Structure formats: structure tokens, C-alpha cells
């Protein structure tokens, strides 16, 4: 959609969505190159999730930066450069709509408006992969990253008996940080399958060349935790949450033996996946990445998507971590500057070279981590029929299997059958697992079954806020976002 006639067209060269490492770096580079740039972010301070509350860190004294380590401290420099840039910074703003060609519906404290920029960089980062296990909807279950968010953003630690269960480097990082901050970690339950270690082993030597420090750091965290945590298990599977109105215990199996640990808080984590909501809403082409087990937008080396006006930078384009995300943001800004003839293609390539070589240098480490922490099948396709896949509309894996048997073709038709994906989260939490369950039940690949279509508004907005947009009487046309010739089974 092009927005109502009253909208200012193209006064902005570049709109950046997200103020994490990719968005901040993109803003810094774009400003340096003289592009009129605006950054829209849902949070109230720059940094995204990884550098959340980084500007508070000095006020909270040195111990705070020590707790989060040098990777976190690196964010300070990036945020300072961003603050010193000429980019316009809009906090507390969510993007509720994006159209092919890059028109944005933006909702802030002062209401909703349409933004037209010549280019858009989506830098919305990653989210934790939802971990659908029996009774994961009980209060007292949250993502390990969520606990880290509370620690960084609000300086809060869990008070009760806390269990961390899952796979990936973050479980060790979070366990370590919570413990150091006074949390009571009663159990660390690592669900990385033993077979992953065998598959990753041949990749280790090259990964060490690329990231010796990172790997040694990870191993030392693990060693420390093993010593310090009363219950430390590896190779666990079959995680279940138990409780009536809130968590009372977690159970799991190791080598066929089931164990139960009583606790007050369970932190689940099975890696992170790109937050593709906006890229999908814009209609950008995506592909299913079998190794990272998620959908990723198709992009070129600079982050250009299938839509010429839209680029995607950072973890939202595929998981690489904060350091590489800021390189990707820098590259995307260079791509925009070249596309808008602010600099020549040759100039862009020259300025991009150091970032490309940094990305290439870390590729072997990424391959190793992706292989070691590749999600096991029970994470992708929750096996228990009673597990809720769609938390909002309360649709179980069993119901999805039943509609698959009835011939349901995929996640979009499953909406009509079950309402799966039609609640307020709009499929953010169930999208991957619902499609995977349907694919498995009908004997097709994840890629074949496809993903839920994402339809605006993708953030809560009232009819009043929509009506108050410039150009009232010409309400935004929601039609063109649906691919033509495809019947959407969802209805409204």
C-alpha cells in the first residue's frame, strides 16, 4: 500500500526498524554517508535485546559490566556512536504494517502515522525459539532469554528454585549470570543430543581457528556450572512441566531414566530464530534453513531482500550473533547508499571489504555452533498430543495432527480448522511448530508446507488509532498484502 494521499513521500532516505546492533550500526553508517535516516524502536533505550539497558550500566557500577562481560560492554561504544549520529531516533514506536515497496505504518506514543522512506532496513533481530512441551503454558515457565532480559533491563533475579533446561550457548551464559547475581539455580538440564557432539566434532578444529576464545570461554562456563550446580544433567530429553496453577516441578529423561526436580521457575531455551514477522508481512521471499531449522529471508550479501526497497540486517536474516549483526547493519547501510547513488558501487564494495572478511572469518565458528546446537526432532515436532502449540487459541499438537489427517494442507488452512495462529501473537509463538507438526503428519517437508502468512496490523492498534491517521476517509487498504490468487482460509 502506498499510504493515504496526505503522507509525506520520500522525505526520508532510510527508515530502520530496530535499535539493536544491526539497526544501530546501520544508522551510524547511513548518517556518516549523509542519508536522511530515522530509526524506529519499540524499546525506550537503544541496544536491542543483547545490549538492553547498556546506557544504565555505568550508573549501576563496574560490577554490572563485569557480570555481562566484554561482549556486552562492546555495545556501549556502538550506542555512543549512534547517539552522536544524525539519525532521528524514535523510541516506543512499533511498526504495525509494512507494505511491498517499504511503506510503514508506525504507532508511537502520539498515535499512528504512515512513513514513506526510499529504503527500509528491517533489523528486528531474533527471538527465542518457543519450546512447546507439556504444560509450558503454566506461570513460572519462561524463556532463559526472558530471565536475562529481566536481569539486564530491570536488574532483577529469580527468587525461588530455578531450573534451566535446554540447549545452546545461552543456557550456560544465563545460568552463570543468574548465579553470579544471586539466583538459586538448582538444576541445569542440557538437552543437546549426544549425536550432535559426534557430528560437530570434525568441525571443531576449524572453528577453533575462527573462535578459539569463544569456544574456550563456553567450555569454562560449563565446567564452572557443573561444579556449582546441585543437579547437572546432559543428554536429557522428554522435558515436561508439572503443576496446577503454576510450575511445581520439571521432569525429563536421561538415557531412559526419568527424573523429577521440584522448582519455582523453569527457564526453557532451544536456541534463537530470526524474528521474520515484518519481512514476511512485507511479502519478502523466504527459504527454510534446515541447519538453523527456521525460515530466513532471502538476501544478497548486503542484505537486499526480494523487494528492492527492503533490506534485512542482523539476526533477523539468519542467526549470527551481535558482533556479526553490527557488521551486517553496516553492510546494509552501504547497500542503501549505493542503491540511492549516494556513493558508487565500487566505493561501497571497498568500504564493505573489512566487514565481509570478518563475516567470512567467523563462518567456521558459526557452522560448528549450528551443528552442535541443531535442535533435535522433538523440539521441532512436539511428540505429545496434549502439548499446546498455539498458546493463544489453545490448539494442541494432537488437534493439528487430526486436521492433517482430514487433509488440511498447511498452516494457513489450519487457521480455519482450528484457529491456530489467530490469537494476539499472530503465529509468532506457534508458527514454526504448527507447520512442522502438519508437515510431519502429512509426510511432507517443512519447506513444502510453508509458513503462516503474516497479515497486518502486526501489533495491537485500536480502530480509533487507525481512523486518526492522516487522510481519514481513505482508510488503509489491507488488501494488497495478500498474495493474489491465494485464498486465505483464516477469515476474520
Amino acid at each position, binding site marked *: 500500500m502506498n499510504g493515504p494521499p496526505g503522507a509525506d513521500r520520500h522525505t526520508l532516505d532510510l527508515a530502520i526498524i530496530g535499535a539493536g546492533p544491526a539497526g544501530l550500526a546501520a544508522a551510524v553508517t547511513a548518517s556518516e554517508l549523509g542519508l536522511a535516516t530515522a530509526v524506529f524502536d519499540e524499546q525506550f533505550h537503544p541496544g536491542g535485546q543483547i545490549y538492553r539497558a547498556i546506557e544504565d550500566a555505568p550508573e549501576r557500577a563496574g560490577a554490572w559490566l563485569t557480570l555481562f562481560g566484554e561482549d556486552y560492554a562492546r555495545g556501549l561504544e556502538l550506542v555512543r556512536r549512534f547517539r552522536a549520529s544524525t539519525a532521528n531516533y524514535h523510541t516506543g514506536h512499533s511498526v504495525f504494517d509494512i507494505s511491498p515497496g517499504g511503506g510503514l505504518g508506525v504507532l508511537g506514543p502520539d498515535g499512528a502515522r504512515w512513513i514513506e522512506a526510499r529504503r527500509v532496513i528491517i533489523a528486528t533481530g531474533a527471538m527465542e525459539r*518457543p519450546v512447546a512441551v507439556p504444560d509450558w503454558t503454566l506461570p513460572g515457565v519462561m524463556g532463559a532469554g526472558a530471565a536475562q532480559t529481566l536481569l539486564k533491563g530491570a536488574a532483577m533475579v529469580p527468587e525461588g528454585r530455578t531450573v534451566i533446561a535446554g540447549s545452546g550457548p545461552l543456557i550456560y551464559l544465563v545460568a552463570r549470570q543468574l548465579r553470579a547475581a544471586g539466583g538459586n539455580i538448582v538444576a541445569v538440564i542440557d538437552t543437546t543430543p549426544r549425536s550432535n557432539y559426534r557430528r560437530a566434532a570434525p568441525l571443531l578444529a576449524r572453528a577453533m581457528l575462527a573462535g578459539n576464545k569463544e569456544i574456550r570461554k563456553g567450555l569454562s562456563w560449563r565446567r564452572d556450572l557443573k561444579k556449582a550446580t546441585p543437579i547437572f544433567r546432559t543428554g536429557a530429553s522428554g522435558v515436561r512441566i508439572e503443576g496446577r496453577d503454576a510450575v511445581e516441578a520439571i521432569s525429563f529423561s536421561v538415557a531412559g531414566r526419568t527424573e523429577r526436580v521440584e522448582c519455582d521457575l523453569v527457564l526453557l531455551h532451544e536456541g534463537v530464530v530470526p524474528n521474520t514477522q515484518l519481512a514476511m508481512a512485507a511479502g519478502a521471499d523466504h527459504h527454510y534453513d534446515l541447519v538453523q531449522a527456521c525460515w530466513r529471508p532471502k538476501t544478497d550479501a548486503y542484505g537486499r531482500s526480494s523487494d528492492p526497497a527492503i533490506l534485512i540486517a542482523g539476526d533477523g536474516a539468519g542467526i549470527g550473533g551481535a558482533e556479526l549483526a553490527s557488521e551486517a547493519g553496516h553492510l546494509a547501510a552501504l547497500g542503501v547508499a549505493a542503491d540511492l547513488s549516494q556513493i558508487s558501487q565500487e566505493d561501497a564494495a571497498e568500504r564493505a571489504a573489512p566487514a565481509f572478511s570478518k563475516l567470512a572469518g567467523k563462518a567456521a565458528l558459526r557452522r560448528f555452533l549450528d551443528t552442535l546446537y541443531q535442535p533435535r526432532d522433538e523440539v521441532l515436532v512436539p511428540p505429545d498430543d496434549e502439548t499446546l502449540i498455539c498458546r493463544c487459541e489453545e490448539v494442541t499438537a494432537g488437534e493439528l495432527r487430526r486436521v492433517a489427517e482430514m487433509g488440511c494442507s498447511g498452516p494457513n488452512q489450519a487457521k480455519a480448522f482450528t484457529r491456530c495462529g489467530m490469537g494476539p501473537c499472530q503465529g509468532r509463538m506457534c508458527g514454526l511448530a504448527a507447520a512442522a507438526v502438519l508437515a510431519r503428519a502429512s509426510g511432507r517437508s517443512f519447506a513444502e508446507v510453508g509458513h503462516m502468512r503474516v497479515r497486518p496490523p502486526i501489533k495491537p492498534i*485500536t480502530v480509533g488509532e487507525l481512523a486518526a491517521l492522516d487522510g481519514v476517509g481513505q482508510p488503509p487498504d489491507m488488501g494488497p498484502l495478500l498474495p493474489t490468487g491465494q485464498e486465505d482460509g483464516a477469515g476474520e
Partner: protein
Amino acid sequence: MFKRLYERRRPVAFEFEGEEVISDEGDTLAAALLAHGVRQTREAPVSKNPRAAYCLIGVCFECLVEIDGRPNRQACMTQVRPGMKVRRQRAADGTEGGGAQ
């Protein structure tokens, strides 16, 4: 459920289900409620089972609350304001997909 590592810097008082909560300036509403020991934010739309924040980054919509009479507010995306009146999101408000539709 969660405890603060630091003293409140600039206390902010608001109401949750009619009860006074003292939070800190800059807290998200979701963090303030967790620090106050609130276990449940929304009611599941179908079963009415208790639900609470899962992701805290604006993705899961489990922390939906009603703020000053407006339903479907994400507590994790909202900063506390003095005197705000917050209620749990009840199922009746959420059965048709909440405000996102």
C-alpha cells in the same frame, strides 16, 4: 518471584487489580508485576487458565493486560506510569484474538 538487585531509584506507584504496587521509574510493567510477586497476567482465552509473561520481548503476548480501561496492552512493552490502573486481561476480551485483529 523476582527480586531487585538495587534499591528503587525513583519509586513509581500504580494499581494492579486495585492493589498498590511500588515499582521503579523505567521498569516495564511486566518487570514491575513480577517483582511484586504477581504470577498471573492474562487469563487464557479459551480455558481461562492462568498465564504469565513468557518472552518479555514483545513476542508472546502472554503479558497482555488492561491499562486505564484499554485492553490488549503488552505489559513488557509498556513503561510504568504513576497512577496507572492495571487489570488482568480477562478471557472475554481476548476470545476474538484481542486487539491485534
